[in-house]
Structures are given as structure tokens and as C-alpha cells.
């Protein structure tokens, strides 16, 4: 890998590449900030309180909050008390979206949470650790004249976390509790136009079901989905980035195969990184517009996971290969100590994701967090993954420290070395420092942007321009890592300049033979004999 393009490039050209990349980066942010709308939207209708007037509550009938075939409804529950209607006769009905709108496959996913308005009464309050039992059924249709078809239905139990912000006194009767949102379901694709939610809260004294949950006033159904416009911008970006990365990958691999030696580990890892980036980039999501692929969310998680695992492994191997400590590495097995935690942590997260989103493919209401045991297991997985991440970063920091120690050691010896060795080491040091800076900049940018979007409102106004920060964050960061991988493959591809040098004989003092030796053993420059011995071994192989 000696003689990468980055070393042989003139400063002017390098600056030009840098500026070009920077411009593209700004462009990526602007695409999200100016063109795309905010990443997600929501609708939060208040569920209509329908009354099931039939005697024995057949489950086949759907209750519509409005429109044709509207259910018999009540405004407040006081009406029900006067009309001798019981809690078991109440069906909360919500139609998503409102009548003039249609849901669309461009929304990609749909996340439904519930919010309960519960009033405090001195002798009807929420007991600690109360659970609420929900009998939920969801139906869909694609035409206003069609019959509703069942999508899913289930009996679900959720924790009711509510706090009364004031003292529990007579004077505060009627005040509302502050309740956490209750996650209800998650759909990985929005392939139908209309959705209908029918939710019952069955009361049973025998089974202790829905007892001591206070006096419910309203149920809000909050439905979150990705913005169609954002999806379009996102797809466009993916469609544009895929060929860019593929082209540079082909170019990079051709450069390597053109060399007389077989590729070294670092080159393979960079190629793998490019591959995992392409894996994320490939816009298979286009199919979700036509097909009802509910596993898209899970697939997206897996793709991201693979990329991050690859990126972390790359950093470790890159550090290792620039160690300059006279040890032969060039094999992935040498790095088991560092790559092990990455693999293990990724596996943990994968299992966790399979338990959450994998099971959701079968039952969209499922969530590992709703049961105590499930939540503990999930937490365990996340903690283990967290420990792995910490371990990894300790290793990484230690390696970076070692490299810098070696660099300062080598730098003092540089003037005494032969020209070839000096160039080699200078190249190594430059390459390492360059990547260090770029990586730190990228990581810092990611973190800063993440924090900015978390603490500020999602929208900045500059005069007439309004910038969608959240969208800018997503497109910007996504573009940034793509550019990172692109730059890596471009700048760290083996340079062919020495051939030209050889032809022109400009007296660089670097015979092609020596160049190849340096290439094959990267860090190993102890004595010429050793080098020749190793080179010979390679040749035999």
C-alpha cells in the first residue's frame, strides 16, 4: 500500500480534491435542509368514543368515527354514565388519516402510540404499577367503498406511567395526570390508503383487568410516519450515490489488480468498507413503493449495522497497519482482540433487533419493552453491546496512542535514513495523520449535528429561507460517510506514479524493486536481508 495516491499527489491537487469534497458535503446538507421537508410527520386524532349497542359484542363489526356508516358516539363519558352505558360498551375508534387524505407507500413506516387523558379523582386514582389492557384491532381498505379488512388484532398489556403534577387533594380533583405515551404498534410498510383503529379497554373485576386506572377522558391516537417528500429526496440521493460508489470501487479494485502483488489486508478492508457502503446505498426501497415489504425496517437496521461494524474494524486495522513497530500483521486474525468486541457487540444488537423488529413482522403490536422480563433482556443486550463499544474504543485509543508514539520516535530518526526508507515513513505518517484528521472531523461533525438536532427546534429561519435541520442532518451525515468512503478509496488506492517515475528516470532513488518490497510488508523495514527474505517467500507463494 506504499505509494498511495495521496502521497504522490501534489499539494495543489490534493487541495482541489479537498475543496471538491467539501462542496459536495455542503450540497448534501443543503439538499436536506432546503429541498426535503422534515423527516417525519404525525397525525394525532382524538379517538371517537363509539358505543357498541349490540348485546354480545361480535368482533366482526368495525366502528367508524365519521363518514358513511359512522358509529353511534358520545361526546363525554358523563353522557354514558347517564345513559347506563358501561366501559365494556365503549370502543375508541380512530381513522387514519383524515378523510380527504390518503396514506401512501411513500410514508415507508407507520408508528402508532397512544396518549391517555386521565383525570384525577380522590377516590378513583391510578395505583402504582398499573397496567392497561388494550383490545386492539386494526383494519385497512384501499377504496372508500370497500369493506374493511382486518390487518391485525391482539390483546395487549401496557404499563401506565402517570404522574399527578400536584398534590392529591380534593381541590385538585379533575386535574389531568401527566402520562407517558404508550407505544402501540409499528408497521414496516404503509401499503394501504386507509387505516382504522378500534380499541377497547375491557373491564373485568375478576381478572383485575383495567381496574384502578383512573377516570379516562380521552384517547389520542398518534400516528408517526416518514414524510413522502423526504422519502423521495432520500431515494434520489441513494440512487445517485450508488453508482458513484460502485464506479470508484471498480476503479479501486482495478488499480489493485494491476499491481504485480496480491492485495494487502488494508486494501481488502477498504474495499469491504466500500462494499458495505454500497450495500446501504442500493435503493432497494424503491420496491417498497410497489410491494408490501414489511421487513424493510429490519433490513435497513441490518445494513446500517454491517456498515458500522465494517467502519469500526477499518479504523482498528488502519491503525494496526500503520504501527511501524516491526511486527508483521497483514492478517485479520492478528486483530481478533479488537475486532472480537465489534463482532460480539454487533451480534448482541442484531439479536436485540430481531427480538424487537423481527417479531414485529409477525405481530405489529409486539414490543420487547412492554414486559418486565423482556425489558431486562433487551437492556442486557444493550448493556453488553455498550461494554463492547467501550472496550473497542479503549483499544482504538491505545492503538492511536501507540502509533503516535512510534511516529514521534521515527520522526527523530528520519534525517539519518536512506531516501527510500525516509519517503516510505514520511508517506506512512502523512497517510495516517490525514486519515486521523478526516475521521475526527467526520465523527465530530456527526456528534455536533446530532446534538444540535436534539436540543434545538427542527427548523431554522434565515430570512425567507427556512432550513429543515433534521433533514439536513440525515442527508448531510449520510452524504458525509459516503464521501468519506469515496475519498478513502480514491486517495488510498495504490499509486502508479512510480512506473512513470521509473520510465522518466528522474532520479527519485526508488527502484521499483524496493517499492514492491515496501508494499508487501508495509511496516516491516528492519534490514534489507529480512525484506528480501520475506519478498522471496511471497514470490514463492
Amino acid at each position, binding site marked *: 500500500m506504499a505509494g498511495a495516491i495521496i502521497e504522490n499527489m501534489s499539494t495543489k491537487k490534493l487541495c482541489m480534491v479537498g475543496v471538491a469534497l467539501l462542496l459536495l458535503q455542503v450540497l448534501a446538507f443543503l439538499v436536506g435542509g432546503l429541498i426535503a*421537508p*422534515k*423527516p*417525519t*410527520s*404525525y*397525525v*394525532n*386524532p*382524538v379517538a371517537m368514543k363509539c358505543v357498541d349497542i349490540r348485546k354480545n359484542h361480535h368482533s366482526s363489526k368495525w366502528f367508524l368515527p*365519521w363518514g358513511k356508516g359512522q358509529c353511534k358516539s358520545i361526546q363525554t*363519558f*358523563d353522557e*354514558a*354514565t347517564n345513559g347506563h*352505558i*358501561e*366501559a365494556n360498551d*365503549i370502543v375508541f375508534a380512530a381513522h387514519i*388519516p*383524515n*378523510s*380527504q*387524505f*390518503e396514506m401512501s407507500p*411513500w410514508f415507508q413506516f407507520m*408508528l402508532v*402510540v397512544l*396518549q391517555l387523558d*386521565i383525570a384525577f*379523582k380522590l*377516590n*378513583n386514582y391510578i395505583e402504582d404499577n398499573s397496567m392497561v389492557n388494550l383490545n386492539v384491532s386494526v383494519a385497512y381498505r384501499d377504496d372508500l367503498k370497500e369493506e374493511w379488512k382486518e390487518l391485525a388484532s391482539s390483546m395487549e398489556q401496557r404499563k401506565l406511567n402517570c404522574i399527578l403534577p400536584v398534590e392529591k387533594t380534593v381541590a385538585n380533583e*379533575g*386535574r*389531568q395526570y*401527566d402520562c407517558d*405515551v404508550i407505544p402501540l404498534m*409499528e408497521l414496516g410498510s404503509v401499503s394501504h390508503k386507509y387505516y382504522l383503529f378500534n380499541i377497547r*379497554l375491557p*373491564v373485568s373485576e375478576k381478572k383485575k383487568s*383495567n381496574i384502578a*386506572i*383512573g*377516570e*379516562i*377522558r380521552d384517547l389520542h391516537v*398518534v400516528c*408517526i410516519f416518514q*414524510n*413522502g*417528500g423526504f422519502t423521495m429526496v432520500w431515494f434520489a440521493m441513494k440512487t445517485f450515490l450508488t453508482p458513484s460508489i460502485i464506479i470508484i470501487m471498480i476503479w479501486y479494485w482495478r488499480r489493485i489488480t494491476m499491481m504485480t502483488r496480491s492485495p494487502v489486508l488494508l486494501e481488502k478492508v477498504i474495499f469491504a468498507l466500500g462494499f458495505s457502503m454500497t450495500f446501504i446505498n442500493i435503493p432497494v426501497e424503491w420496491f417498497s413503493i410497489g410491494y408490501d415489504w414489511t421487513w424493510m425496517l429490519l433490513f435497513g*437496521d441490518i445494513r*446500517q449495522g454491517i456498515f458500522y461494524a465494517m467502519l469500526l474494524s477499518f479504523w482498528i486495522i488502519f491503525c494496526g497497519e500503520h504501527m511501524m513497530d516491526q511486527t508483521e500483521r497483514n492478517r485479520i486474525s492478528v486483530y481478533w482482540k479488537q475486532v472480537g468486541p465489534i463482532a460480539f457487540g454487533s451480534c448482541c*444488537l442484531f439479536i*436485540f433487533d430481531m427480538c*424487537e*423488529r423481527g417479531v414485529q413482522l409477525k405481530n405489529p403490536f409486539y414490543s420487547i419493552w412492554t414486559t418486565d422480563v423482556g425489558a431486562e433482556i433487551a437492556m442486557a443486550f444493550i448493556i453488553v453491546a455498550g461494554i463492547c463499544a467501550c472496550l473497542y474504543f479503549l483499544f482504538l485509543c491505545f492503538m492511536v496512542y501507540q502509533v503516535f508514539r512510534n511516529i514521534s520516535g521515527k520522526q527523530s530518526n528520519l534525517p539519518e535514513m536512506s531516501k527510500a526508507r525516509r519517503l516510505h515513513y514520511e508517506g506512512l505518517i502523512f497517510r495516517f495523520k490525514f486519515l486521523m484528521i478526516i475521521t475526527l472531523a467526520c465523527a465530530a461533525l456527526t456528534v455536533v449535528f*446530532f446534538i444540535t438536532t*436534539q436540543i434545538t427546534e427542527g427548523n431554522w429561519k434565515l430570512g425567507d429561507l427556512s432550513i429543515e435541520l433534521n433533514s439536513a442532518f440525515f442527508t448531510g451525515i449520510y452524504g458525509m460517510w459516503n464521501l468519506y468512503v469515496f475519498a478513502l478509496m480514491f486517495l488510498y488506492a495504490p499509486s502508479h506514479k512510480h512506473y512513470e517515475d521509473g520510465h522518466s528516470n528522474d532520479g527519485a532513488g526508488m527502484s521499483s524493486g524496493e517499492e514492491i518490497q515496501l508494499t508487501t510488508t508495509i511496516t516491516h523495514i528492519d534490514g534489507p536481508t529480512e525484506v528480501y527474505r520475506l519478498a522471496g517467500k511471497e514470490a514463492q507463494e
Partner: protein
Amino acid sequence: MQGPLCLRRTAERSSMTGILRLLLVTSLLSCWKQALVGANSWWSLALNPVQRPEMYIIGAQPLCSQLTGLSPGQRKLCQLYQDHMVYIGEGAKTGIKECQHQFKHRRWNCSTVDNNSVFGRVMQIGSREAAFTYAISAAGVVNAISRACREGELSTCGCSRTPRPKDLPRDWLWGGCGDNVEYGYRFAKEFVDAREREKNFPKGSEEQARSLMNLQNNEAGRRAVYKLADVACKCHGVSGSCSLKTCWLQLADFRKVGEYIKEKYDSAASMRLNKRNKLEQVNQRFNPPTAEDLVYLDPSPDYCLYNETTGSLGTHGRQCNKTSEGMDGCELMCCGRGYDQFKTVQVERCHCKFHWCCFVKCKKCTEIVDQYVCK
């Protein structure tokens, strides 16, 4: 006063409303002339039921000309946004109810006087009480409009339920339906402030000062709703991490809004009109009021005694608390006139069993309590 808030109605309260009603009748008779003098207000929408616009479409009756208390500008808005009027009425009602709750134990208890001017002549004085009333009713409108907007009842707001032109679903694909509370705020600003904006008072006049005061207090009320709206969020990034978060505004319990505006009432700033026709604080040493603060021009009238010119109803016949040393204590409430003592039987529901809705099984407990009424 018999809204859903007061399920547990005690004899105490019903007797109180009885007295109030009596007072109302007497004051109505005496205020006969005043109704002509006192300016009609849009607050009257709270007391005169606004019929649902559908009925007007069927009956082909002009809704807006029937409503009393609207200014010309408000009437125009009413014609443009007929479906909003019911909710404005509801909002005003919530505001008044909250006002009555907050001032339950005060000498002035926010009682309504007649169906047109609603609060009677007291509102003509630019007092703290007037400031509170303007703020809370503006807040009530924001609250009600936002609520109706979210429920899809209004044709012009984001996620409406009524049919609109065909090209909208594209917008929807691009951006979602927008914020209900913001819509409520904007509409309430248009509607409530219309009354003050359309009049051109001579510069430096008392009327202009009052108009500025009302504008400021209306704004403070509207902002209270906006400020107190809770932000609820849900994380849903990769594997449920918080890299992607969606937040939405949730209207606060209106009691919270009432308490907040009551705090503002207690710290309201006394103002006067300066030479540049702007309101300035009388006492310049204090921090100037922000857009969220209440302001007033005149000192409050004496609410102890009935006074036709100020519109004060007096505290005669009001209930008081013998042991309390606060405003509800008999000493302060009756303004030193003394009180009468009664014994009443109070029936309360006790040992109740509840479900989350519609089912209550209680025993009745009776208790004999002493009641004190101002002379």
C-alpha cells in the same frame, strides 16, 4: 357551573349557585338599563348557544347576523369561517368557567351578569380583573380552536375532515398537516383582536389606552396556551434509538392555563399612556412587562358593595369560610359587615367503586355542616 369537572356536587355548591342565581335575577332587573349602556361582547357566544352551521345551511338562515356581540370585523370573520363559531363559543365558555374557578374565593368572582355584555359594567374599568378576563377568554378560544382543529372539525385548518380541492394530497405527501396549536393561536389572534384593531380612537385618548391594554392581555392569554402546551416525543431511530425523534404539541389541561394566568394577574403591571401613544409602566423601577404579562390601567373598583356605576355586585349573600384568614375568610369577604350562620345537610358520595368510565357505585354519606353567608 355544572360541567364535567364537577361530578361531585355538594349541597354547599348547589346552594351557592342558588344564591348566585337569585343575585343574577335581581341584578338582571337592575341592570336592564345597563345592558343598553354596556358594550356587547363576543363573550356572549359563550352564553347564547351557537347552532352548528349545518343547521343553518339546511335552514338557509344567516348565522352571523343572528349572533349578538360581534363587531363588524368579527362578523366578517364569522362569515368566512362559519364552522369556527361554535368553538369560539365553547372557548369563551371554558374561559369564563375557569375564571369563575380561579376567582371562587375572591370578592369579585367572575360572575356573569347578562347575556349580552356578559360580565356587566365592571369590564368597562381597565382593572386587573378586566385584564384577567380578556386573557383567559382569549386563551379559551385558542384552546377550543386548536382542539377542534386536531379533531378535524374545521375546514381551513391542517388536518381537516371536510373535503377540499384535489391537489392537496400531494402537499400531504410532502409535509404532513401542520400544527393545531399554531392554527388556534393564529385564528384567535385574528378573531379576538379584530374588535380592537378596527376602531380608530383619537391618539392619546383613554379609549386608545384601553384598546392597547386589551390587545396586550389578549396576547398574553393566547401565549399562555401556546407556552404551556406539552411537547410529547417518541424516539424511533435505528433499533428504536433516539437518532430520529418526532414531537408533537399536546394542549395542556386548561386548569394549568388558568393557574398560569392567575399568577400573571397577581403580578400584573400598572400602565399609563405616554406621549408617544404607547403604554408605559407607571412605576419605572420594575422590569417592563413582556408580551406574556398582564397589564392594567385603572385600580380595581370596590367590590364589597353593590354599585351601579362600577358594575360591582357586592359580596352580600356570598359564602365565606369562618376559619380562613385569606380572601375567602369571612372577615375579608364580607368587608367587615359580619355574616349569618346556617346549618345545612350536605350529602356526599362516599366509599365509591369506579371503573375508568361510566360506572360508579357509591354510598351516600350525610353530614351536617355550618355555612356562613355575608350580610
